[in-house]
């Protein structure tokens, strides 16, 4: 439809030109009586299976935009049993809304720590679930978060575990681990054999191996240390970097084996 060229032409036909849009709107109105574009929330929900599989209705024609909830990033679900307390979720959080808090059931000396999420800060970016090496922290389709007190926005690990138990559909995306990952390397002369890395390793992939104590040369002092050195099992390592951060001598670092 081309607009009329002159002012005169426009004013002559102005009745029709007002009536035409009205007719379009009226057509939409009648159609929407039969197929409303809205749903009756909260009695109906978009994540219901009937909307998942089939139809979003929009005035006149059904459109199959189902399954929009498959990758949805909502409230997290945490499987406490498989969590290895690697801290990667907390490290990867851009909002710093994840705290690692102690949960019962760990070794009393080195308590088990699981993520506690403050939904007042969370931006639902999904970096934490991408980073989780065990797949125990995922995001579900739950999105209703209204609370009356601010403190209720902080979800303790137990509460996240309850979300996990509801078996909501969870974000299925699992990002593959890159092939050429760096490994944990040791700057051997700095190591004092203190066992901190092996103690705190969440996957227990670090073993302390004995190394020979060097013979004392005349005029030279043997350094005081435990004659052990950490050896990392690369296939079990999840690259969380806990060992690097606990090392008192900063002798562990990222690198590639030559």
């Amino acid at each position, binding site marked *: *439809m081309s*607009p009329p060229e002159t002012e005169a032409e*426009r*004013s002559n*036909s*102005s009745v029709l*030109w*007002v009536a*035409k*849009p009205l007719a*379009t*709107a009226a057509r*939409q109105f009648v159609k929407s009586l039969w197929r409303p*574009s809205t749903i009756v929330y909260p009695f109906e929900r978009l994540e219901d299976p009937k909307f998942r599989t089939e139809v*979003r209705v*929009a*005035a006149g*024609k059904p*459109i*199959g*935009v*189902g*399954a*929009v*909830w*498959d*990758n*949805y*990033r909502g409230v997290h679900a945490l499987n406490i049993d498989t969590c290895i307390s690697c801290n*990667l979720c907390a*490290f*990867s959080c*851009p909002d710093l809304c994840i705290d690692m808090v102690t949960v019962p059931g760990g070794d009393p000396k080195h308590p088990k720590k699981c993520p506690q999420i403050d939904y007042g800060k969370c*931006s*639902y*970016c*999904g*970096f934490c679930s*991408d*980073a989780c*090496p065990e797949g125990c922290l995922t*995001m579900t389709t739950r999105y209703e978060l209204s609370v009356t007190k601010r403190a209720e926005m902080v979800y303790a690990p137990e509460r996240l575990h309850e979300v996990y138990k509801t078996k909501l559909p969870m*974000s299925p*995306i699992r*990002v*593959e*681990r*890159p*092939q*050429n*990952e*760096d490994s944990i390397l040791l700057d051997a002369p700095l190591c004092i054999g203190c066992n901190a890395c092996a103690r705190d390793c969440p996957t227990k992939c670090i073993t302390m191996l004995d190394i020979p104590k060097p013979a004392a040369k005349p005029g030279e002092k043997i350094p005081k240390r435990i004659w052990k050195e950490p050896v990392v099992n690369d296939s079990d390592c999840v*690259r969380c*970097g806990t060992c*690097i*951060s606990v090392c008192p001598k*900063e002798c562990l*670092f*990222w*690198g590639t084996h030559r």
Partner: protein
Amino acid sequence: MWINMGPQHPMTHGLWNLRVRIDGELILDVDPEMGYLHRGIEKISEDRHYNEIITLMDRTCYVAGMAWETLFVLGAEQALHVTPPERAEWIRVLSEEIQRLGSHIMWYAAFVQDLGLMSPFLYGMRDRDLLLDLLQSYTGARMTYEYNRVGGVRNDLPSGFTDRARKVCDWLEDRFREYDALCLGSAIFHKRCDGLGVLKAADCVRLGVTGPMLRSAGVKRDLRKDRPYSAYDRVDFDVAVAEGGDVTGRYLVRMEEMRQSVRIVRQALDWLDRNPGPCLAENLPRWLGAPYAPVGREGYLLRRNYPKGLGFSAIEEPHGEALAYVVNEGVEHPYRVKLKSPIFVNLSAAKEYLVGYRVADIPPIMGSVDICVGEVDR
């Protein structure tokens, strides 16, 4: 007399202030004031890991988050010497065009509401929801996607996505006819918009105005054609151009752009159907790899020297030409990120296209600029 239209005014579509000097109904002078929504995104970016900055870019422009993500990621890839796989580039083209459709329909809804038309507003919001559904079905969120990654995109398209997207394309083309019937078919619309807010081509070029405002003045300039990025050099489409540089011209340009976007979406879907493959680059540095996105803050010691680099990217965002400059100094966060917002320029030129018109003309004229203040103030 100076009057303040804003910061709380239905015309502003966000938080900014238009100071207007009037004589009766006649506008003598205008003075746009921006900065109410400044969040310091550029500065915050300087101590964030590259992939974490993507969460900020979504919030730069809240109706076109995907475009800004792509903009930053393109710059960061250049700075970090990373090449994304071809499939990721096509997914970016697809996402950006869906985003452009969503942004333009959002503009349409807001613009017609400025004119006082309520029904097209509702139709626009309804139709945009289908596009948001499409985006949600593979990114996982409606507006803040966090989908692009340095070196590709987070995940591949889900099965059945391309069929659904094609259905939406078919349906949208019907809707565009309906939009035109409601607006171009209405004498009221023409009386309200024709010859209003004229910005001539020479003025556009002199002031640096870009995007649909520039093209509505008859200048054939589109970064997707003139400086192709991602896979735009392999896509067939026309640059929408109109004459006159007035409000109706901007409407026509955006409508035509939406039709061209549907065309690009169809081509991208066809390509993506034919060519499966990885969508995240292999051989990424460990600290850029997706599972460990942002390790490297909080006292981590990275005893490595990564190659330094500079990144510059320019994309045709729904509102105009957006530029990003990323300086990589060899650590895991950028030394500097600079963003150039097209709307900031388009708004700053307000004096040129508002003076001489009436106060009642301000809502349609400013509505036709397509303002997103999050992007103006960053």
